[in-house]
Structure formats: structure tokens, C-alpha cells
């Protein structure tokens, strides 16, 4: 509930704190005819329109500042990523290169084995041929029978 003395311009009798007394003493007394002028101004349509556009301008300025701040943040963040990326490979690229290396290693291994297989067959074939040349009965060569 409001203090009933709040509308009075006079200084209350009992004010204990000197600061309170100084504040009350410093109240600015309203000039005469104030209420009528204020009511007239409040009902002025032109003043209302000016206030509307002023509020719109304030809101637009705030939105622009926020958008600029967001843009600067994004640019700064991208710059930070770019500068940080030059010093060490990005994890994604590193993973790709590792996978490529592994794949090449696998292919190399396959190729080596393929070559080795061919070489092994060639070698086995050569051994069999040499073995046939030494023994008249090629079927006894591997039968294990003892004569």
C-alpha cells in the first residue's frame, strides 16, 4: 500500500538519517500546469507516432548490433580454425590417409603373395621337372615304396 505522504511535496517532520533528510530536501518541485501539459502531450497522435518509430529504430539498432557481433564471432572462429589447421593435419584427413596407407599395404601384401604364389608354382614345377629327369618311374617318386 502506498505511503499516504508520497504525493506531498513537503518535507516530513521526522527523518532520522541525515541522508534521508538530504534526499527529501533535494526533491525537484514540479512546475505549475504540469498535469495538463502531460495529458495533452500523451493524447497527441503525432507524438505517439514519433515514439513508435523511435522504439522501432532502437529495436532495429539492437538487432543490427547483435547481427554484427554474431558475424564477427563466426569470422573469428573460422580464422581460428584456419590458422590452427595449417600447423597440424586435420583429424579427418589423417584418418583418410591412414586408411589409404592401410589399403595400399593390403594390396602390396596381396601382390606379394600373388607373386610369391606364382614364384612358388614355378619353383614347384621346376623341382618336379628335375625330379622326373632323375627317376625313370615318376610314379615311384612320391609313393614311398621301398625296393
Amino acid at each position, binding site marked *: 500500500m502506498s505511503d499516504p505522504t508520497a504525493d506531498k511535496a513537503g518535507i516530513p517532520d521526522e527523518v532520522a538519517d*541525515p541522508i534521508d533528510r538530504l534526499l527529501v*530536501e*533535494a*526533491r*525537484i518541485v514540479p512546475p505549475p500546469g504540469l498535469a495538463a501539459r502531460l495529458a495533452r502531450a500523451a493524447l497527441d497522435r503525432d507524438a505517439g507516432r514519433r515514439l513508435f518509430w523511435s522504439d522501432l529504430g532502437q529495436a532495429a539498432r539492437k538487432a543490427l548490433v547483435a547481427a554484427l557481433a554474431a558475424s564477427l564471432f563466426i569470422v573469428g572462429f573460422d580464422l581460428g580454425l584456419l590458422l590452427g589447421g595449417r600447423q597440424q593435419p586435420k583429424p579427418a584427413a589423417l584418418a583418410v590417409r591412414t586408411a589409404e596407407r592401410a589399403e595400399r599395404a593390403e594390396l602390396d601384401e596381396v601382390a606379394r603373395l600373388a607373386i610369391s604364389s606364382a614364384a612358388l608354382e614355378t619353383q614347384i614345377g621346376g623341382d618336379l621337372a628335375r625330379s622326373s629327369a632323375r627317376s625313370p618311374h615318376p610314379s615311384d617318386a612320391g609313393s614311398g615304396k621301398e625296393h
Partner: protein
Amino acid sequence: MESDEAAWIAAARAGDVPAFERLVQRHAEPIYRIVAGHLGAGEAEDAAQEVFLRVHQGLAGFRGGCEFSTWVFRIATNVALTRAARRRRHPPAVTLAPGDAPPAPAAGPAETSARAERRQAVRAALAALPDAERAVAVLRGLEQLPFDEIARILGISRPAAESRMARARERLRTLLRPWIEGT
């Protein structure tokens, strides 16, 4: 809310000009003192005009969930704080020296120069307070409102209002020491 005020609000909402004028008549002086407490006499009437313009535009949205005075005082405080912040960002081109300041309107007998200087010093000290503390100091110190009402106006708790007032007093005591010791 007083019953006549509720009727004036309803009528003003419907476009009744005399009803709105009665509302303005009732609240003009405290509103003027509140904005003057933040901005000084030079900008007070302009700020008070903006307050009642916003009151008039916002009447349709006032649901009566609080006292009409609480709502109007809240608008006044917000207008004053916004203008004070704008003034800090864009200070006026010409600043008056203390001796050039226009004399305050006399409340009764002609003011002595010492009293006028004291009032100027208090107003300058108020202007030097942080916004949150000045808002409470104006409502409590200048308008003598109870802390419950101040808390409702500012949308804070009563302990927070009391705490801000205590801090404001300490700062004012420091800034106005010569004036306190001399009284």
C-alpha cells in the same frame, strides 16, 4: 486499487479523454519527481511526457494485476533509466559548470545559496549512483515509498530492495560527507 481509479482506467481505455486526464492529474507530480531524480530538472518534463504517452498506449494491455501506480512508476523508472543510459553513451555537447546550473524552483521561501548548493550536490550524488541503487534511492528517498511497493515496482524481492538502499546510503554518505558534517 481505488474504485474511482479503476473506473477512470476502464473509461480511458474506451477512449474517454477526461478520464485519462484525471489519471494523469493524480500521478503527474510523483512521476515528474521520479524521472527528475534520475535525469534532473532539464529533461524531467520531456521524460514525464514519454511516460504518460506509454501509459496511454499501454492502457489496453493493463490487466489490473497490480496497482495502477505500481505499473506507472515502473514505466517511469524504465524510461528514466533508458534515458540515463542513452545520455551516458551520447553525452551532451555542452555541459554546464555547477555555477551555471539553473536554480531549482523554490519550494517556498527564497532559497539561500547554501541550500541550493546542497540540493545540487545531492542531485549530483544521486546521478553518480549505479542505476540499480539509484532506482531504489529515488523511490525510497525522494518518494518515501515502502520497500514492499518498491520491490513490486522494480520486480525484485524486498530484501534486494533494502540491500540496494543500504548500499546507496553508504555511497551517498561518502559523496555527501561535507554536507552531512556541516549540518
